[in-house]
């Protein structure tokens, strides 16, 4: 499947990735190439096949639902680009 520049821009917006103008054309070609290549799967008969959602069939392990840590605010915030009064800070979202 071939995709155009508008589709690349739409995907980039969905993925929240800024694409510079000089990268767009290359991406159109590369992504089209990859999508065309994976399309060979359409030829495979998968009627009645259940999708595989887990790599190894085993029941998920249960554990007690209890608090195992806490009181580590400073650790949690230590790598944040901007912290204000103990909170992650982001650009204003409400006008």
């Amino acid at each position, binding site marked *: 499947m071939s995709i155009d520049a508008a589709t690349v821009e739409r*995907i980039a917006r969905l993925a929240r990735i800024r694409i510079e103008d000089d990268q767009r054309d290359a991406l159109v070609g590369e992504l089209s190439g990859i999508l065309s290549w994976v399309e060979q*799967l359409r030829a495979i008969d*998968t009627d009645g096949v259940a999708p595989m959602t887990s790599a*190894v069939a085993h029941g998920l*392990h249960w554990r007690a639902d209890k608090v195992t840590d806490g009181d580590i605010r400073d650790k949690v915030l230590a790598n944040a680009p901007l912290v204000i009064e103990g909170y992650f800070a982001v650009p204003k979202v409400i006008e």
Partner: protein
Amino acid sequence: MAELHELDLAEARDLLRRRVISSRELAEALLTEIERAAPLNAFLTLDRERTLAMADAADAALAGGEHGPMTGLPVAIKDVFCTEGVRTTAGSRILENFIPPYESTVTANLWRAGAVMLGKTNMDEFAMGSSNENSAFGPVRGPWRNGKGEDLVPGGSSGGSAAAVAARLAPGATATDTGGSIRQPASFTGTVGMKPTYGRCSRYGMIAFASSLDQAGPITRTVRDAAIMLGAMAGHDEKDSTVVDRPVPDYEAALERGVKGLKVGVPKEYHSAKTPKEIEDLWLEAIEWLKAAGAEVVDITLPHTEAALPTYYIVAPAEASSNLARYDGVRYGLRVMPDEKASLTEMYEATRGAGFGREVKRRIMIGTYVLSAGYYDAYYLKAQKVRALIARDFAEAFETVDLILTPTAPSAAFALGAKPDPIAMYYNDVFTVPSSLAGLPAISVPAGTDGQGLPLGLQLIGRAFDEETVFAGARVLEEAAGFSAAPEPWWKKGS
């Protein structure tokens, strides 16, 4: 006695326990080698003080007659494992200054077993790549060279770990494998790379690429060392619900079981006109080695093999696009504000645009596309169904065979910059991706060299959670191959 930095894990373990050498002198010798090997760019972060403090603690334990399975043994850690207080980048600009406030379970298990951290190894960004050229911190130069003296790739994504072990900078290193990232670099560098069954090692604190595929394992120079190291890395973990709650076998004890009476399958679909004759010949030779050791070798069919790569390149990017959504410039990692008045969305877009490299962007975008409204069924759901068929092929084969023998990679190490086309690069993992999709344990063993003297690996695939048989088979291949080649240490010249 070999020089300290040339000791393998089992040899060093013996000398440490007999107190012939100390962990500190071993660690110091290896740190010196690492410094001299700066041209390889195999390491991203070293913390000499921490390394020596861990070595001293190990020496104190050994002096007191106490030891764990790996006490005093130095290992390198792929920079995808979070190490508390030590920078962890996943090879990405977006995590360039990230200092984890916690420890991954795999590394915590290694330290509990007594191992000593040498440093953090270079890798393809977020483990996406097969040549280690996608690292934001520059490619790793492979320690091997061809007749033309070109710089070759070490394979990827665990290229730094594989290069470090091959160049005798570390006797062992952790690695991770999503579609071949342990086994392919092991094959390229003449080392042993073991990807255990999905669910054997905890993924807690291992920076996620594709969660249904990612699995940790060791790269070492011998099969025995891989068994020692995997035994220390594996095990149940309350912090990762996909790890199985079953005891970790004594892998080392399984090494000398041999293959007498075992049935080994050779899948006809792995014969390809594109594979160099030297690799086909080595594969045929290995069939004779296994027969001579008492195994019965039979032809098998894995009909959906050809579908594995395109399936992988839908499933893995889809999972990656979801996993990498967390890098948004808010809680950790890089933040880029295009200008003071930028909106939150503009901040996200600028941060991710600047923080991710080209291959990571490509995969996030492919993943976003195949999961988007209108395309989910045609791409993602379809790929999950084909994945089920690929897993079924293996399940049917393992009803009659105990192991499957294949080449590890379709070529030896290639030159840096030789594969600019993404799909040509993806083809590197043609023999490793199928078993990854099926979640099965698989090992690469160095089995020979090509006409240019470059290492070639062979792969053994086993039943889920039967790493023991995989190790036993690998030991037979190792013994028969007698691979002893080592790269010429060209990186030391002039230092």
